């Protein structure tokens, strides 16, 4: 891989602190690097700069040069080059680093500017924080503590604008709270490529709305809610459900496709209330699809498997292990692993297959990619199966070979890790011919037919790792405790490995990773605790010839097909 050229570094001075930043860095980002917060509303690091909120006004100065000789003008008092401060404040978001640039963010004039903007933003704002969902994560509230007045000089009537405007199926708008920063408009245009939002009317009466006949209903609409700095755009799903300051945040990964979108799961007392994107500039920036945000509902959905059952009768894990050992001892076993399982689970699935001398099958799920954050491969962890060695080739959508083996009598027992065999092309007749050991979260025809049934956990209830389309290994953590009656996948699988006569392995990620690191070459130098929050890129060269389904998407370009001699780099 060719490293990108080192960017030109430029030294700028922020509140007297010098810092070298790449050319083109704007002053908000440069200030962030020295720990200086420049308040802003309209600026968003992933969107175009419009500079309309005027909250980030700072004082700017450039090094003085003699106009005639172009020689630096040195201040005799300090021995340094004199700085010519501009008479007017400038916006930090649109000021890019240039050599010797100085900014001041704490001077009286800057404070006065911020106070002025705050007062203006609040005079027509309804100030309905007690009933506003944004309260607690509202930029207006935050900046009010620093630059608010505490009383109002405004005795006129506030502007009246539409409340409760339905912009689309998932987004609700309160125009009175809107500060007209245009982040949502720019997101729709620039990222979602679905230009449906705009302002009508002018001046202080400007009103955000959808274009006539259009709705904000693309699969990325809820990102507008995330980036809305105030409570104007709210999620119809989350609205009025919970105060954000009560919620616990857990880092997680979106499982709807191999993009591996980083997420934060917000929960309180064992209940998940919402899922939002977590910034990862190498994977999803600050975005995620709407469809991934409702996956948490599966936790409390009907059909959740509630107890371990052996031949339909409620049992405990020991009884299930005993029965499984009996079924597995007969030989002629097949294991259906899953691209939805975590790396750790896939490692154990591989161990299980080895112990039971079983063939391994996987089910592929290929749909259409949206070129953004939903990829063609809807399994979040096919690459985990490759990395752990569970499989060596990409799976197909139909378990045709397994069906044939069942028909021929070569397989009489199937262990399925969360995969519904009927949905994967096994017929009801074939299913009736085999004994089934099923691990899964929700009821389906395979779970109904299982001789041994062990309910397991959803991604929100367990720890683990996934490997995304970039071969980036990323961790997810448990947000809420497991559903009653469910067994941790790792425990269930390690008991099955033992039941099949395999080694005794740890049933928690920590101890399991010792075994993984010693046996999986690609992960040999790693430990679970050492994987950074933004993931680690693995060496993909052993698999680069495989015909992966993904097309290009955000921060991802598929490797050129091996057959073509495409120039590298």
């Amino acid at each position, binding site marked *: 891989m060719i490293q990108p050229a080192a960017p030109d570094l430029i030294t700028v001075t922020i509140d007297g602190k010098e810092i070298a930043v790449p050319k083109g860095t704007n002053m908000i980002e440069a200030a962030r690097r020295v720990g200086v917060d420049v308040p802003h509303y309209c600026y968003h690091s992933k969107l175009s700069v419009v500079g309309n*909120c*005027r909250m980030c006004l700072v004082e700017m100065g450039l090094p003085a040069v003699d106009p005639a000789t172009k020689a630096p003008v040195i201040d005799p008092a300090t021995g340094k080059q004199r700085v010519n401060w501009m008479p007017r404040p400038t916006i930090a978001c649109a000021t890019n680093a240039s050599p010797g640039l100085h900014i001041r963010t704490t001077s009286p004039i800057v404070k006065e500017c911020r106070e002025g*903007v705050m007062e203006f933003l609040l005079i027509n704002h309804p100030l309905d924080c007690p009933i506003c969902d944004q309260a607690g994560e509202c930029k207006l509230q935050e900046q009010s503590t620093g630059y608010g007045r505490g009383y109002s000089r405004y005795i006129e009537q506030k*502007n009246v604008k539409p409340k409760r405007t339905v912009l689309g199926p998932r987004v609700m708008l309160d125009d009175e709270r809107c500060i007209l920063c245009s982040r949502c408009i720019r997101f729709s245009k620039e990222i979602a490529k679905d230009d449906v939002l705009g302002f009508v009317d002018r001046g*202080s009466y*400007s009103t955000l709305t959808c274009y006539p006949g259009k709705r904000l209903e693309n699969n990325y609409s809820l990102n507008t809610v995330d980036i809305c700095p105030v409570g104007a755009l709210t999620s119809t799903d989350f609205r009025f459900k919970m105060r954000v300051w009560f919620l616990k945040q857990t880092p997680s990964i979106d499982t709807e496709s191999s993009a591996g979108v980083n997420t934060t799961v917000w929960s309180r007392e064992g209940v998940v209330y919402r899922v939002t994107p977590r910034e990862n500039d190498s994977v999803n920036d600050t975005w995620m699809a709407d469809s991934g945000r409702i996956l948490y509902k599966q936790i409390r959905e009907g059909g959740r498997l509630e107890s371990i059952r052996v031949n339909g009768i409620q049992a405990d894990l020991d009884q299930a292990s005993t029965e499984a050992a009996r079924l597995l001892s007969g030989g002629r076993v097949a294991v259906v692993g899953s691209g939805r399982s975590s790396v750790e689970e896939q490692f154990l699935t591989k161990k299980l297959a080895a112990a039971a001398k079983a063939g391994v099958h996987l089910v592929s799920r290929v749909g259409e990619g949206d070129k953004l954050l939903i990829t063609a491969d809807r399994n979040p962890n096919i690459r985990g199966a490759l990395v752990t060695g569970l499989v060596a080739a990409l799976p197909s959508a139909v378990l045709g070979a397994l069906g044939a083996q069942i028909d021929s009598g070569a397989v009489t027992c199937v262990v399925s890790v969360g995969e519904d065999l009927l949905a994967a092309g096994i017929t009801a007749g074939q299913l009736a011919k085999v004994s089934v050991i099923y691990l899964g979260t929700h009821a389906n025809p395979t779970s109904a037919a299982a001789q041994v049934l062990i309910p397991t956990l959803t991604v929100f209830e367990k720890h683990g790792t996934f490997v995304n389309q970039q071969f980036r290994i990323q961790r997810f953590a448990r947000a809420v405790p497991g559903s009653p009656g469910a067994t941790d996948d790792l425990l269930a699988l390690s008991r099955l490995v033992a039941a099949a006569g395999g080694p005794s392995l740890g049933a928690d990620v920590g101890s399991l990773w010792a075994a993984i690191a010693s046996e999986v070459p690609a992960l040999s130098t790693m430990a679970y605790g050492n994987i950074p929050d933004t993931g680690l890129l693995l060496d993909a060269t052993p698999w680069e010839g495989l015909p992966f389904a993904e097309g290009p998407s955000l921060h991802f370009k598929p490797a050129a097909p091996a057959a073509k001699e495409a120039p590298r780099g």
Partner: protein
Amino acid sequence: MPAPEQFRLIFRHIDEPGYTNDLDCYVRNGGYETLRKSVARKPEEIVDDVKKSGLRGRGGAGFPCGVKWTLLDRKSGKPIYLVVNADESEPGTFKDRYIIHKDPHQLIEGIMITCFANKVERAYIYIRGEFPEGARILEKAIAEARAANFVGPGILGTAYGCEIYVHRGAGAYICGEETGLIESIEGKRPYPRIKPPYFPAVLGLYQCPTIVNNVETLCHVRHIAERGGEAYSKIGTPNNTGTRILCVSGHVRRPGYYEFEVGKVTMGQLLNEVCGGPLPGRAFKAVIPGGSSAKVLKFGERYKGKRKVGAEMVDYDWSLEDIPMDFDSLAMIGSMGGSGGVIVMDDSVSMVEALANINAFYSHESCGQCTPCREGSLWMKKITGRMVHGLARAEDGALLKSVADQIAGRTICAFGEACAWPTQSFVAKFGDEFKAYPESKKAKRADGVPDLV
């Protein structure tokens, strides 16, 4: 000292008996001869002439035209556009409309010379939406000039060609701001762009280098090309060259258009002699010298300081009547020459009500893009509106000033100053009137009087 004679350069033929706005009449009076001579010259020579002439933009800011042209990014390889700002919307200003109505070919000739000098092959005239008649006249004039080979491909037997398009605005003051105007031509809301990076000379129309010039400015280009830069620069006063059309409106006996050499006529000569003085039984109270956004001046005040005459600094002590009507003098005493719209108010005017009127205009015209102007202009309107509707408070003047101070200098475009300056200057110069307004009889509205704002 008696007022000097008018120097009618742009208005040389306008208002002459029998002078019409068609091509024949224009050509009969020597029209397009300058263009014919210009296309035989080197483009750089014409740019040089304009630089030497010292011509300053007549749209409001008074930026030197030649400098504007030299800032153009000519190395990008992108096409260069000329945009003619005919979105004349500043209250008190009505000169561009008159030029377009009475002598459209003068403008077209100026455009063609400018385009030739800057190697522009496409020009847009952005005309205010409320000027349908002007747009019709321009369309007709362009068609005539095209038929006569003054506009279009291969003009006057040369290889050079240029098309002129008329684009009608949709009715917003902010469309006159050059980057807002560019956005509007591109079909978007006229939100002014942030500068940097979107300087029209580099990233203008369709992200190409663009010249935006006022109608009157381009007419002057025609006369500069005719007379030569050196000769033109002798008209007017140093750094304030040429002539300037002053649009006088309000409480004078003879309001109207007057074209003078810049700086050769004083405020007193203009109002008292040229315009005939105040209405019978009245006395002048205040004057806004450059369109409604310029800071108001108060009769009876004196302006003192030092100014540069040649290389020397000399003291000046002027009454309002002594002020020469040029860019630098008006800026020096704290107002501006702006667009040349002189608005005169006599002692029948309540300054609170006059400001309420101006604030109503600016709050209606704020585009709403950036916070200080959007919220501040409406707040000021609401305060002055409340005052004139009978709920004035003694502290309102101070509040108005404080709000205006939070706007000026902190916005994306110059509209922030345009809406803050009237309030700042009205309160500064007529603060007593604002303080006394709650007590005045006028503060209470009579029954049945319609809302002023």
